[in-house]
């Protein structure tokens, strides 16, 4: 061939996607590790302590990235789900299934760190503010998706049912968020905000953005690892898997 053109379509086949994912995972993992170290260093050793909250505010460097990732990944889940329903290539549904557990984990981390931040700051382990409550509901949406897929044995039905649920859920997320905001402002006189109302120091912002990037790279690496497992499990009778298995022993 005179010119090398990348045929992207071939990567929608699980057998071709598997080695491609395998090649890029170490790259994302390394990036995640580096960004994590830099971000934590900036957040703990360079950024000063907060005037009001003291050292406890540093939880923000894991709480915000986790919350952001949980929301972003749910959107991605819905996008992959839609692609899976539209294009009938199995790889999209596999990606959706691969994202869900990591997204759910970050939703949980967001809730956990939110509680540990709230206790010293506001005296209670849980505050029913709009963002925490919305994150809780997001966590339920993830759990629903995972439960539905594990309750269905036929792979094709599990993929498509999960996809429909994810899309319905994603469409509902703005409605849910708006309702929770309304509910929250009606029921509380003083609005408790977990965010920072004053302007944020540049160092803190930098550390925060780097941590978000770190968690993002981690999520990509882990999702690709999981999708490779899913591919192996679904294609287990294919000869290429047999060859691969032979190499393991």
């Amino acid at each position, binding site marked *: 061939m005179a010119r090398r053109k990348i045929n992207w379509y071939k990567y929608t086949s699980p057998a071709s996607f598997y080695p491609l994912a395998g090649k890029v995972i170490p790259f994302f993992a390394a990036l995640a590790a580096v960004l994590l170290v830099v971000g934590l260093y900036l957040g703990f050793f360079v950024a000063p302590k907060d005037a009001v909250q003291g050292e406890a505010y540093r939880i923000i460097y894991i709480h915000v990235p986790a919350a952001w990732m949980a929301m972003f990944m749910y959107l991605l889940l819905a996008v992959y789900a839609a692609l899976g329903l539209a294009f009938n290539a199995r790889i999209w549904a596999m990606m959706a299934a691969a994202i869900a557990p990591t997204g759910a984990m970050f939703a949980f981390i967001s809730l956990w760190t939110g509680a540990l931040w709230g206790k010293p700051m506001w005296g209670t382990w849980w505050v029913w503010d709009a963002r925490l409550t919305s994150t809780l509901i997001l966590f339920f949406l993830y759990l629903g998706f995972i439960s539905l897929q594990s309750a269905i044995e036929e792979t094709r039905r599990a993929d498509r049912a999960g996809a429909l649920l994810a899309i319905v859920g994603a469409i509902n997320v703005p409605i849910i968020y708006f309702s*929770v905001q*309304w*509910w929250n402002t009606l029921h509380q006189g003083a609005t408790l905000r977990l965010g920072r109302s004053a302007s944020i120091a540049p160092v803190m912002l930098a550390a925060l953005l780097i941590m978000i990037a770190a968690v993002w790279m981690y999520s990509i690496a882990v999702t690709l690892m999981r999708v490779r497992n899913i591919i192996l499990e679904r294609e287990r009778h294919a000869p290429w898997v047999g060859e691969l298995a032979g190499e393991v022993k």
Partner: protein
Amino acid sequence: MLATLRWVIQRDATLAWRGRAGVLSTLFFFVIVVSLFPLGVGPELNVLRTIAPGVVWVAALLASMLSLDRMFSHDYLDGSLEQLLLTPQPLSVVVLGKIVAHWLVTGAPLVLMAPVLGLQFDLPPGALLTLLWSLLLGTPALSLIGAVGAALTLGLRGGGVLVSLLVLPLCIPVLIFGAGAVEASITGASAESHLSLLGAMLVVALMFAPWATAAALRISME
């Protein structure tokens, strides 16, 4: 299309009437759950009045979830659902008919029963009326949203619990505005904004749910 709609509603309602014991159990569940709260919380009327909107609404929500099973599973088990999928009529119309019948049989009794239960909680008459309106607008929305979950979980083990896990997060906005409307009424404020938002949600659900449910039925049945 209207003829199909009317036919489906009549069929489902007749079948439900013949098996009405099952239908009444939803209503009894609603009544019992609502009555449990004073037993758990204490008889003080001020407290009861405060929690009444939330209690009645959550009980209606739960009763709605539990009754979702009957929307499709009877037809699924005896094979008539398969036949319904094959009719030349648009599936979403058939589905809408089933949802309407389901609401008439499970949701409407709740709406009628709720003001009576509201009396147990010493709600003022204005609030009782708002309760009626909010449930009248809200329970059809719950049936519509629930239908999608019922269609997705057709024939699966785990039954009512799985459907509830899937559908309850999606019903939270209806709960917030439904209970919020009654609460506003109790304090003397206007419940108009809540009720209009409930109405808007009902309209949106009416537009999307039958179509999504039909898609879910196809996914579950292929």
